[in-house]
């Protein structure tokens, strides 16, 4: 009789909620919330409550697979690793790329980037952060010096004003929405800027319904009002920032009238909201993909930083610029260097001193040139320049923009290895598939959106012959001849991370057992950092940038008259690999749908539940229409979870020039009827 409650981190979003996996004699019997956890406090969302379902799914990969004559056959681990090792050694380093995973632990991501750099000798290692917050990392580094959420989740409760822009917090980060709602009930003012009606808008003091892709203009409008009414924090600007004149000059022309023309937000609402934001003591900005996933993603992020600095809302409790990270460990995967231009702790590969440090630590020569980003990898593969890819725990066949192009690219590779817990759409294209262990079957750490590094703990043995990703990467590295992958446990890997990564310098497992630690945590004595930039910005002074508004890359026209914007729902997660294998979630939302405004629907003769065709210049899908007021006229919304009506068949893979994030939030589409018989939408 062995009954255990194993405390671990929910594997879905970046809130970092903890729960117990309940285990009876080695079998998962349920999930129990953890009342003493700092964020979740004994509460969970529907995904969290059901996060053990997919672990025991019959679809789990249990054996290595190799494709033979178009069919997968089971092979031994030894054979699989032999094949992969031989193949990867056969190509020049520049023709190999690796995708790491925001669903894997810090330790695993660190090893994946070490494998890329120290063994394969390429910097082409990236992961899906490129698709969600690449613009945050760039934008907040150039303004503040640190590309992460400035404050802690719980602090939101005590803000005087919260400005949520481009974040459907209730659905995407439910346990963070909890703190926004608690704040609201204590009297905090709430401003929500979102083209859609989202659950938060009904509680907002102001809902600013901007046209998708006009965020820079909207925020410049805020700053124009603040400056013209003298509501800026003059002392903060003088003491702590630089570049103010540049900002002032640019913002001048963004009068409320001008901004109304661009964004569609009435000037009265804009003026009142701007005053509300600037007049109180502590204002917090919360944003997510609505800000980042644009060709102007970096501009949007910098604009948020500008607004916060202008009003002195950085470096204090309950203020700051708070990007909410979507994946459980997307923060950590970035922190430990699964990015093509930096090692762990955002240390540049171009910096010779840094490179020398890592060469010494890993006892090998390292490549100098920055590597390829996610979308660039696909482009190079399509062109035939990239020959082989090793993808761990990612599903670009659903998550990346312009899926037809992704498919073409992956099929054009000479060799593709996919390591996952399920045979995903991407894994189906692989030459070799390796079965990874799920979060419930291994030890490690995840870093939540507010930089909190927390332990995940093994509750049950890996299913079948699956193995924790860190063990697989180590075995492959050894096969490839490296002597630098000898670890007995994830704790030992963390010790190495701490030794080469200043912001993780004080992270050791013994210190992480209770509530974890927030980076920067520079030494074994350092208490961690609940909020950043106190007294001094990470880069010294905060830097303003004057940002001009630019239109999205593809605007509606006569042929494609609608703006498509994409996103998620509370009941599913990303490409559905986990959530669509969960009964309770499928029951709520079994398939995809397209939100269309009732007026537009009427004009097109579309009724609720009718199957329609949505087309862009890149592809076409059939999807059920949901006739609603949630989207304004001229805008349609499609969640991207569903392979059978994949929103990313339509999206535009055009990138932000610096952060290389694709523009998921705006592209032009047309909508047409495909059949006359209505079929009630099951949503």
């Amino acid at each position, binding site marked *: 009789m062995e009954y255990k*409650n194993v405390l671990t981190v929910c594997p879905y979003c970046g809130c970092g909620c903890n729960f117990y996996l309940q285990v009876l004699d080695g079998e998962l019997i349920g999930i129990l919330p953890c009342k003493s956890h700092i964020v979740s406090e004994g509460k969970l969302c529907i995904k969290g409550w059901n996060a053990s379902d997919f672990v025991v799914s019959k679809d789990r990969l249990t054996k290595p697979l190799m494709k033979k004559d178009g069919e997968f056959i089971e092979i031994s681990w030894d054979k699989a690793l032999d094949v992969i090792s031989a193949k990867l050694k056969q190509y020049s380093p520049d023709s190999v790329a690796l995708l790491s995973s925001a669903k894997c632990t810090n330790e695993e991501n660190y090893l994946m980037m070490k494998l890329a750099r120290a063994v394969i000798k390429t910097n082409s290692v990236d992961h899906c952060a490129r698709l969600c917050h690449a613009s945050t990392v760039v934008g907040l580094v150039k303004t503040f010096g640190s590309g992460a959420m400035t404050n802690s989740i719980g602090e939101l409760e005590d803000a005087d004003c919260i400005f949520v822009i481009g974040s459907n917090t209730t659905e995407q980060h439910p346990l963070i929405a909890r703190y926004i709602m608690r704040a609201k009930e204590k009297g905090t003012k709430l401003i929500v800027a979102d083209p859609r009606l989202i659950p938060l808008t009904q509680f907002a003091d102001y809902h600013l319904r901007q046209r998708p892709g006009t965020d820079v203009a909207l925020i410049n409008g805020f700053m124009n009002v603040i400056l013209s009414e003298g509501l800026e924090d003059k002392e903060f600007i003088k003491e702590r920032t630089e570049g103010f004149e540049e900002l002032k000059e640019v913002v001048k022309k963004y009068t409320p009238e001008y901004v109304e023309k661009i964004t569609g937000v009435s000037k009265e609402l804009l003026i009142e909201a701007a005053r509300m934001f600037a007049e109180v003591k502590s204002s917090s900005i919360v944003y997510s993909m609505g800000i980042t996933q644009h060709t102007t993603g970096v501009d949007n992020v910098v604009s948020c930083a500008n607004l916060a600095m202008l009003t002195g809302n950085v470096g204090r409790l309950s203020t700051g610029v708070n990007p909410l990270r979507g994946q459980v460990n997307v923060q950590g995967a970035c922190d430990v260097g699964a990015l093509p231009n930096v090692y762990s702790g955002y240390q540049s590969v171009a910096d010779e001193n840094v490179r020398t440090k890592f060469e010494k630590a890993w006892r090998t020569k390292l490549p100098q040139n920055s590597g390829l980003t996610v979308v660039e990898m696909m482009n190079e593969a399509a062109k035939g320049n990239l020959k082989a890819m090793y993808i761990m725990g990612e599903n670009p066949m659903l998550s990346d923009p312009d899926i037809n192009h992704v498919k073409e690219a992956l099929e054009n590779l000479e060799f593709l290895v996919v390591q996952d817990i399920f045979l995903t759409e991407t894994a189906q294209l692989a030459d070799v598939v390796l079965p990874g262990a799920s979060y419930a079957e291994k030890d490690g750490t995840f870093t939540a959106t507010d930089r909190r590094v927390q332990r995940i703990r093994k509750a049950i043995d890996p299913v079948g012959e699956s193995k924790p990703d860190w063990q697989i990467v180590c075995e492959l590295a050894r096969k490839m001849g490296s002597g630098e992958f000898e670890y007995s446990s994830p704790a030992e890997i963390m010790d190495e991370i701490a030794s080469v990564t200043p912001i993780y310098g004080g992270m050791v497992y013994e210190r992480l057992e*209770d509530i974890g630690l927030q980076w920067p945590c520079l030494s074994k004595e350092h208490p961690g950092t609940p909020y950043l930039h106190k007294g001094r910005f990470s880069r010294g002074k905060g830097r303003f940038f004057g940002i001009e508004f630019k239109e999205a890359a593809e605007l509606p026209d006569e042929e494609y008259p609608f703006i498509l914007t994409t996103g998620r729902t509370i009941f599913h997660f990303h490409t559905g690999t986990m959530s669509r294998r969960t009964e309770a979630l499928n029951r709520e939302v079994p398939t995809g749908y397209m939100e269309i405004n009732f007026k537009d629907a009427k004009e097109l003769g579309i009724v609720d539940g009718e199957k329609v065709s949505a087309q862009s210049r890149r592809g076409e899908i059939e999807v059920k229409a949901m006739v609603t007021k949630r989207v304004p006229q001229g805008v349609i919304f499609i969640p991207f979870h569903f392979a059978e009506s994949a929103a990313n068949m339509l999206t535009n893979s055009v990138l932000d020039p610096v952060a290389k994030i694709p523009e998921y939030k705006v592209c032009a589409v047309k909508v047409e009827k495909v059949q006359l018989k209505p079929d009630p939408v099951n949503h």
Partner: protein
Amino acid sequence: MIGKVQELAKQYLTSGKVGAIFGLRENNGHIAPHIFKEVEELDSLVISPKYPLFYTCRPSKKNIPRLLQEKYPEIKVGVVAKGCDERALIELAKRDQVDIKNIEILGVACTKEEAVECKCSKPYPYNLLIGERVEGVSEDKDAEDLLKKGLPERLAFWQYQLSKCIKCYGCRNACPLCFCKDCALEQELWSKRGELPPEIPVFHFIRFYHLADRCIECGECEKACPMDIPLLTISKQVRKDVKELFDYEAGLDVGQESPLLTTLDETPMGETISDGV
């Protein structure tokens, strides 16, 4: 007081009165239910903060003691139970969800503070072995304040509260008495699936009505709510109505049949594990 609880648990275990103790354990500052099999382990036994011991595991929809009883019928389990744990046990036993005869209750009283925090009217078990019985919270201030207001105001209050719901099902999941195989909340018939917030008020009121004769006022529903909806306020009102109408209280006596499970001539309709409604 915790010393006394640990001492008694040790006695039970060493004397062989029970084969294992089911209670709460502290580990690195976190509290969770635990099965204590060794005397040495009992130093980490705690009694607060409160945690649901008869929590329903999903997908099996069975509580931990029941799962243990099915697998290890020969082992008698001692349960370190507070008032609400004991009431849950009684109500579950009444409904064939656990075998109470094979459980030994180590009853522990709650403090006044705990009673106030839980708005608990009976913060002690019948089998009180450790601690002093303190008076419960008799008045339901939240409800009284609301009842003073007019209907439109009350309606607006609940409409606002329920509009916060994010449909996590936490209120149901955390409830020791929510063990139905087919849950009415999940059925399209009553409340449209996949919507936020779920239909107001039907989604929540199905749950309140379903628990009318089961709710033992532990308050775990309210504590599990990410949006702080004051669910217990309504549960308490419904429980009060059932008491006034039928002179029935859930969790009082294993032998007392629920009025909602009897026919008009008072013959029991019965409720078994297999057809738990």
